[in-house]
Protein backbone atom coordinates (compact mmCIF):
# COMPACT_ATOMS: atom_id res chain seq x y z
CA UNK A 1 0.00 0.00 0.00
CA UNK A 2 1.08 3.56 -0.62
CA UNK A 3 1.42 5.99 2.28
CA UNK A 4 -0.72 9.07 2.35
CA UNK A 5 0.93 12.45 2.63
CA UNK A 6 -0.34 12.79 6.19
CA UNK A 7 1.23 9.44 7.03
CA UNK A 8 4.53 10.45 5.39
CA UNK A 9 4.59 13.54 7.63
CA UNK A 10 3.69 11.45 10.68
CA UNK A 11 6.33 8.80 9.96
CA UNK A 12 8.89 11.54 9.48
CA UNK A 13 7.91 13.02 12.81
CA UNK A 14 8.45 9.56 14.36
CA UNK A 15 11.87 9.22 12.69
CA UNK A 16 10.77 6.37 10.43
CA UNK A 17 11.11 8.40 7.25
CA UNK A 18 13.90 10.90 6.66
CA UNK A 19 13.30 14.06 4.61
CA UNK A 20 15.82 16.78 5.37
CA UNK A 21 15.20 19.66 4.96
CA UNK A 22 11.44 19.19 5.29
CA UNK A 23 8.81 21.65 4.12
CA UNK A 24 5.24 20.99 5.20
CA UNK A 25 3.86 22.74 2.13
CA UNK A 26 5.58 20.14 -0.09
CA UNK A 27 3.42 17.28 1.21
CA UNK A 28 0.99 15.92 -1.42
CA UNK A 29 -1.91 13.51 -0.94
CA UNK A 30 0.41 10.52 -1.68
CA UNK A 31 3.93 11.90 -1.96
CA UNK A 32 6.44 14.55 -1.00
CA UNK A 33 7.74 17.12 -3.52
CA UNK A 34 11.52 17.27 -3.55
CA UNK A 35 13.72 19.98 -5.00
CA UNK A 36 16.63 20.21 -7.44
CA UNK A 37 20.14 21.02 -6.22
CA UNK A 38 22.40 23.28 -8.27
CA UNK A 39 24.92 20.52 -8.87
CA UNK A 40 24.86 18.63 -12.20
CA UNK A 41 27.29 16.27 -13.86
CA UNK A 42 27.64 15.15 -17.46
CA UNK A 43 29.87 12.53 -19.03
CA UNK A 44 32.98 13.98 -20.69
CA UNK A 45 33.03 11.50 -23.55
CA UNK A 46 30.30 10.91 -26.07
CA UNK A 47 30.84 7.13 -26.09
CA UNK A 48 30.23 5.30 -22.79
CA UNK A 49 31.14 1.78 -21.78
CA UNK A 50 29.13 0.14 -19.02
CA UNK A 51 32.16 -1.91 -17.95
CA UNK A 52 34.49 1.08 -17.45
CA UNK A 53 34.55 4.16 -15.28
CA UNK A 54 33.33 7.01 -17.47
CA UNK A 55 34.80 10.46 -16.78
CA UNK A 56 32.47 13.27 -15.79
CA UNK A 57 32.39 17.06 -15.66
CA UNK A 58 30.56 19.28 -13.21
CA UNK A 59 28.08 21.98 -14.10
CA UNK A 60 26.48 24.41 -11.64
CA UNK A 61 23.04 25.85 -12.21
CA UNK A 62 23.42 29.66 -12.03
CA UNK A 63 20.77 31.80 -10.30
CA UNK A 64 19.23 32.69 -13.68
CA UNK A 65 18.70 29.00 -14.45
CA UNK A 66 20.36 26.58 -16.86
CA UNK A 67 19.07 25.59 -20.26
CA UNK A 68 19.12 21.81 -20.62
CA UNK A 69 19.58 20.69 -24.20
CA UNK A 70 17.08 18.23 -25.57
CA UNK A 71 18.20 14.61 -25.97
CA UNK A 72 21.15 14.95 -23.64
CA UNK A 73 21.75 13.27 -20.29
CA UNK A 74 22.41 15.35 -17.16
CA UNK A 75 22.82 13.73 -13.76
CA UNK A 76 21.34 15.87 -11.01
CA UNK A 77 20.54 15.47 -7.33
CA UNK A 78 17.86 16.27 -4.83
CA UNK A 79 18.66 18.94 -2.25
CA UNK A 80 16.90 16.79 0.33
CA UNK A 81 18.44 13.81 2.05
CA UNK A 82 15.70 11.17 1.90
CA UNK A 83 15.23 7.54 2.85
CA UNK A 84 13.57 5.09 5.21
CA UNK A 85 14.42 1.89 7.03
CA UNK A 86 10.73 0.94 7.07
CA UNK A 87 9.16 1.78 3.70
CA UNK A 88 10.19 1.31 0.07
CA UNK A 89 10.69 4.60 -1.77
CA UNK A 90 9.82 5.20 -5.42
CA UNK A 91 10.00 8.53 -7.19
CA UNK A 92 8.52 10.20 -10.22
CA UNK A 93 8.56 13.56 -11.90
CA UNK A 94 5.88 15.99 -10.86
CA UNK A 95 3.22 16.07 -13.51
CA UNK A 96 4.00 19.74 -14.18
CA UNK A 97 7.60 18.82 -14.94
CA UNK A 98 6.65 15.88 -17.14
CA UNK A 99 4.34 18.19 -19.11
CA UNK A 100 7.47 20.15 -20.08
CA UNK A 101 8.84 16.95 -21.60
CA UNK A 102 11.43 16.40 -18.88
CA UNK A 103 12.30 12.91 -17.62
CA UNK A 104 13.80 12.83 -14.13
CA UNK A 105 14.58 9.13 -14.22
CA UNK A 106 15.06 6.65 -17.05
CA UNK A 107 12.82 3.67 -16.18
CA UNK A 108 14.45 3.54 -12.75
CA UNK A 109 12.01 4.83 -10.09
CA UNK A 110 12.63 2.15 -7.45
CA UNK A 111 14.79 2.78 -4.39
CA UNK A 112 16.00 0.38 -1.73
CA UNK A 113 14.92 0.26 1.90
CA UNK A 114 17.74 1.65 4.01
CA UNK A 115 19.24 3.96 1.37
CA UNK A 116 19.58 7.39 2.94
CA UNK A 117 21.10 10.21 0.96
CA UNK A 118 20.58 12.75 -1.77
CA UNK A 119 19.02 11.03 -4.75
CA UNK A 120 20.63 11.06 -8.17
CA UNK A 121 18.19 12.13 -10.87
CA UNK A 122 18.61 11.49 -14.57
CA UNK A 123 17.47 14.66 -16.30
CA UNK A 124 16.65 14.08 -19.94
CA UNK A 125 14.71 16.75 -21.79
CA UNK A 126 12.68 15.98 -24.88
CA UNK A 127 12.57 19.74 -25.57
CA UNK A 128 15.11 22.40 -24.50
CA UNK A 129 14.09 23.55 -21.04
CA UNK A 130 15.47 25.95 -18.42
CA UNK A 131 15.69 24.56 -14.89
CA UNK A 132 16.42 26.32 -11.61
CA UNK A 133 18.06 25.42 -8.35
CA UNK A 134 15.46 24.68 -5.69
CA UNK A 135 12.58 24.07 -8.07
CA UNK A 136 10.19 21.36 -6.95
CA UNK A 137 11.00 18.79 -9.60
CA UNK A 138 9.83 15.40 -8.42
CA UNK A 139 7.89 13.48 -5.84
CA UNK A 140 8.88 10.67 -3.50
CA UNK A 141 6.36 7.98 -2.57
CA UNK A 142 6.61 5.32 0.11
CA UNK A 143 5.18 1.78 0.05
CA UNK A 144 4.59 -0.79 2.75
CA UNK A 145 6.35 -4.15 2.57
CA UNK A 146 5.77 -7.77 3.42
CA UNK A 147 8.66 -9.89 4.73
CA UNK A 148 11.78 -9.43 6.75
CA UNK A 149 13.68 -6.21 6.03
CA UNK A 150 17.42 -6.05 5.33
CA UNK A 151 18.84 -2.55 4.96
CA UNK A 152 20.65 -1.19 1.91
CA UNK A 153 24.40 -0.85 2.29
CA UNK A 154 25.38 -0.51 -1.34
CA UNK A 155 27.72 1.63 -3.37
CA UNK A 156 25.51 4.73 -3.39
CA UNK A 157 24.75 4.85 0.36
CA UNK A 158 24.87 8.36 1.90
CA UNK A 159 25.24 9.93 -1.56
CA UNK A 160 25.95 13.63 -1.41
CA UNK A 161 25.20 15.27 -4.75
CA UNK A 162 24.73 13.47 -8.06
CA UNK A 163 26.60 10.21 -8.53
CA UNK A 164 27.90 8.92 -11.82
CA UNK A 165 27.20 5.25 -12.50
CA UNK A 166 29.38 2.85 -10.54
CA UNK A 167 28.26 -0.11 -12.60
CA UNK A 168 31.88 -0.72 -13.66
CA UNK A 169 32.60 -2.00 -10.16
CA UNK A 170 30.52 -5.10 -10.97
CA UNK A 171 33.00 -5.96 -13.73
CA UNK A 172 36.06 -6.20 -11.49
Amino acid at each position, binding site marked *: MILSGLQIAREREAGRIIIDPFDESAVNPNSYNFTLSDHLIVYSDELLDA*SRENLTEEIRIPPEGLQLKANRLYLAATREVMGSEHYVPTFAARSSVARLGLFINL*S*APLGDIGFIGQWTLQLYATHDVIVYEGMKIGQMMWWT*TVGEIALYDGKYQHANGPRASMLFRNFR
Partner: protein
Amino acid sequence: MLLTGAEITRQRRNGVIAIEPFTADQVEQNSYGFRLGHRLLSCDDEVYDAHRPLERIAPVEIPAEGVLLYPNRLYLGETLEIIGSTRYACELYGNLSIAALGVWIQVSAPLGHTGAIVRWTLEIRVSQPIRLHRGMRIGKVAFWSVNGDVVQYNGRYANSVAVTESRLCTEVAS
Protein backbone atom coordinates in the same frame (compact mmCIF):
# COMPACT_ATOMS: atom_id res chain seq x y z
CA MET B 1 2.48 -4.41 -0.60
CA LEU B 2 5.95 -4.82 -1.94
CA LEU B 3 7.92 -7.97 -1.11
CA THR B 4 11.26 -7.58 0.64
CA GLY B 5 14.27 -9.46 -0.69
CA ALA B 6 13.92 -12.06 2.08
CA GLU B 7 10.27 -12.61 1.15
CA ILE B 8 11.12 -12.94 -2.56
CA THR B 9 13.65 -15.62 -1.62
CA ARG B 10 11.17 -17.40 0.64
CA GLN B 11 8.34 -17.40 -1.92
CA ARG B 12 10.73 -18.68 -4.57
CA ARG B 13 11.56 -21.56 -2.25
CA ASN B 14 7.79 -22.12 -1.89
CA GLY B 15 7.45 -22.32 -5.67
CA VAL B 16 5.23 -19.23 -5.88
CA ILE B 17 7.91 -17.05 -7.50
CA ALA B 18 10.13 -18.24 -10.35
CA ILE B 19 13.58 -16.73 -10.92
CA GLU B 20 15.89 -18.99 -12.92
CA PRO B 21 18.81 -18.95 -12.67
CA PHE B 22 18.86 -17.54 -9.14
CA THR B 23 21.79 -16.45 -7.01
CA ALA B 24 21.47 -15.13 -3.47
CA ASP B 25 23.82 -12.22 -4.14
CA GLN B 26 21.41 -10.77 -6.70
CA VAL B 27 18.71 -10.44 -4.02
CA GLU B 28 18.21 -6.76 -3.19
CA GLN B 29 16.37 -5.01 -0.34
CA ASN B 30 13.00 -5.04 -2.10
CA SER B 31 13.75 -6.50 -5.54
CA TYR B 32 15.90 -8.97 -7.41
CA GLY B 33 18.69 -7.60 -9.61
CA PHE B 34 18.23 -9.24 -13.02
CA ARG B 35 20.81 -9.43 -15.78
CA LEU B 36 20.89 -8.67 -19.49
CA GLY B 37 20.44 -11.79 -21.60
CA HIS B 38 22.42 -12.70 -24.69
CA ARG B 39 20.05 -11.77 -27.51
CA LEU B 40 19.26 -8.38 -28.95
CA LEU B 41 16.78 -7.48 -31.65
CA SER B 42 16.44 -4.29 -33.65
CA CYS B 43 13.91 -3.89 -36.42
CA ASP B 44 14.89 -2.13 -39.61
CA ASP B 45 11.43 -1.02 -40.73
CA GLU B 46 11.52 2.67 -41.47
CA VAL B 47 8.02 3.03 -40.07
CA TYR B 48 6.51 0.70 -37.50
CA ASP B 49 2.87 -0.08 -38.26
CA ALA B 50 0.74 -1.10 -35.27
CA HIS B 51 -1.53 -3.03 -37.63
CA ARG B 52 1.15 -5.01 -39.49
CA PRO B 53 3.81 -7.54 -38.52
CA LEU B 54 7.31 -6.08 -38.40
CA GLU B 55 10.03 -7.27 -40.77
CA ARG B 56 11.21 -10.23 -38.74
CA ILE B 57 14.86 -9.95 -37.96
CA ALA B 58 16.64 -12.78 -36.19
CA PRO B 59 17.95 -11.65 -32.81
CA VAL B 60 21.72 -11.25 -32.73
CA GLU B 61 23.90 -12.73 -30.02
CA ILE B 62 25.72 -10.05 -28.05
CA PRO B 63 29.42 -10.80 -28.61
CA ALA B 64 31.91 -11.22 -25.77
CA GLU B 65 33.28 -7.70 -26.28
CA GLY B 66 29.80 -6.21 -25.87
CA VAL B 67 27.50 -4.40 -28.25
CA LEU B 68 27.43 -0.73 -29.15
CA LEU B 69 23.99 0.91 -28.99
CA TYR B 70 23.10 4.30 -30.47
CA PRO B 71 20.55 6.98 -29.53
CA ASN B 72 17.29 7.47 -31.42
CA ARG B 73 16.89 3.78 -32.08
CA LEU B 74 14.86 1.15 -30.27
CA TYR B 75 16.52 -2.12 -29.28
CA LEU B 76 14.72 -5.08 -27.79
CA GLY B 77 16.72 -7.09 -25.31
CA GLU B 78 15.85 -9.81 -22.86
CA THR B 79 16.42 -10.72 -19.26
CA LEU B 80 18.91 -13.50 -18.69
CA GLU B 81 16.53 -14.97 -16.11
CA ILE B 82 13.08 -16.50 -16.49
CA ILE B 83 11.01 -14.50 -14.00
CA GLY B 84 7.41 -14.49 -12.82
CA SER B 85 4.91 -15.52 -10.19
CA THR B 86 1.60 -17.34 -9.94
CA ARG B 87 0.61 -15.24 -6.92
CA TYR B 88 2.22 -11.80 -7.27
CA ALA B 89 2.35 -9.10 -9.92
CA CYS B 90 5.79 -7.84 -10.83
CA GLU B 91 7.36 -4.69 -12.21
CA LEU B 92 10.63 -4.42 -14.07
CA TYR B 93 12.75 -1.30 -13.67
CA GLY B 94 16.24 -0.19 -14.54
CA ASN B 95 18.71 0.10 -11.71
CA LEU B 96 20.37 3.40 -10.82
CA SER B 97 23.69 2.28 -12.28
CA ILE B 98 22.23 1.69 -15.74
CA ALA B 99 19.90 4.71 -15.67
CA ALA B 100 22.82 6.94 -14.68
CA LEU B 101 24.49 5.83 -17.91
CA GLY B 102 21.53 7.15 -19.86
CA VAL B 103 19.90 3.79 -20.55
CA TRP B 104 16.18 2.98 -20.44
CA ILE B 105 15.29 -0.69 -20.06
CA GLN B 106 11.61 -0.23 -20.79
CA VAL B 107 9.50 2.46 -22.38
CA SER B 108 6.78 3.27 -19.82
CA ALA B 109 5.68 -0.39 -19.55
CA PRO B 110 6.97 -1.82 -16.27
CA LEU B 111 4.08 -4.13 -15.35
CA GLY B 112 4.36 -7.93 -15.50
CA HIS B 113 1.12 -9.81 -14.92
CA THR B 114 0.52 -12.54 -12.41
CA GLY B 115 1.04 -15.88 -14.15
CA ALA B 116 3.46 -14.62 -16.80
CA ILE B 117 6.61 -16.64 -16.11
CA VAL B 118 8.87 -15.67 -18.97
CA ARG B 119 12.18 -14.35 -20.15
CA TRP B 120 11.14 -10.68 -20.28
CA THR B 121 11.64 -8.53 -23.33
CA LEU B 122 13.26 -5.19 -22.50
CA GLU B 123 12.77 -2.06 -24.61
CA ILE B 124 16.22 -0.53 -24.55
CA ARG B 125 16.88 3.05 -25.55
CA VAL B 126 20.04 5.05 -24.88
CA SER B 127 20.68 8.78 -24.56
CA GLN B 128 24.28 8.58 -25.78
CA PRO B 129 26.27 5.84 -27.53
CA ILE B 130 27.17 3.08 -25.09
CA ARG B 131 28.65 -0.38 -25.03
CA LEU B 132 26.58 -2.88 -23.08
CA HIS B 133 27.70 -6.35 -22.06
CA ARG B 134 25.74 -9.57 -21.84
CA GLY B 135 25.16 -10.84 -18.34
CA MET B 136 25.54 -7.39 -16.79
CA ARG B 137 23.20 -6.51 -13.95
CA ILE B 138 20.80 -4.16 -15.67
CA GLY B 139 17.54 -3.96 -13.71
CA LYS B 140 15.40 -4.68 -10.70
CA VAL B 141 12.26 -6.80 -10.60
CA ALA B 142 9.88 -6.05 -7.73
CA PHE B 143 6.90 -8.18 -6.65
CA TRP B 144 3.58 -6.82 -5.43
CA SER B 145 0.95 -8.64 -3.42
CA VAL B 146 -2.43 -8.74 -5.13
CA ASN B 147 -5.73 -7.72 -3.60
CA GLY B 148 -8.62 -9.87 -4.90
CA ASP B 149 -8.94 -13.21 -6.68
CA VAL B 150 -5.89 -13.97 -8.74
CA VAL B 151 -6.20 -14.56 -12.49
CA GLN B 152 -3.29 -16.06 -14.43
CA TYR B 153 -1.94 -14.34 -17.54
CA ASN B 154 -2.63 -16.18 -20.74
CA GLY B 155 -1.80 -13.53 -23.31
CA ARG B 156 0.19 -13.49 -26.51
CA TYR B 157 3.55 -13.40 -24.77
CA ALA B 158 2.84 -16.29 -22.35
CA ASN B 159 5.72 -18.77 -22.23
CA SER B 160 8.15 -16.38 -23.98
CA VAL B 161 11.66 -17.68 -23.60
CA ALA B 162 13.42 -15.24 -25.93
CA VAL B 163 13.23 -11.58 -26.94
CA THR B 164 9.94 -11.07 -28.76
CA GLU B 165 8.90 -8.15 -30.94
CA SER B 166 5.49 -6.47 -30.62
CA ARG B 167 2.57 -8.64 -31.67
CA LEU B 168 0.06 -5.86 -31.39
CA CYS B 169 -0.92 -6.54 -35.01
CA THR B 170 -2.58 -9.80 -33.91
CA GLU B 171 -5.19 -7.66 -32.14
CA VAL B 172 -6.54 -6.20 -35.35
CA ALA B 173 -9.96 -7.56 -36.23
CA SER B 174 -9.76 -9.52 -39.47
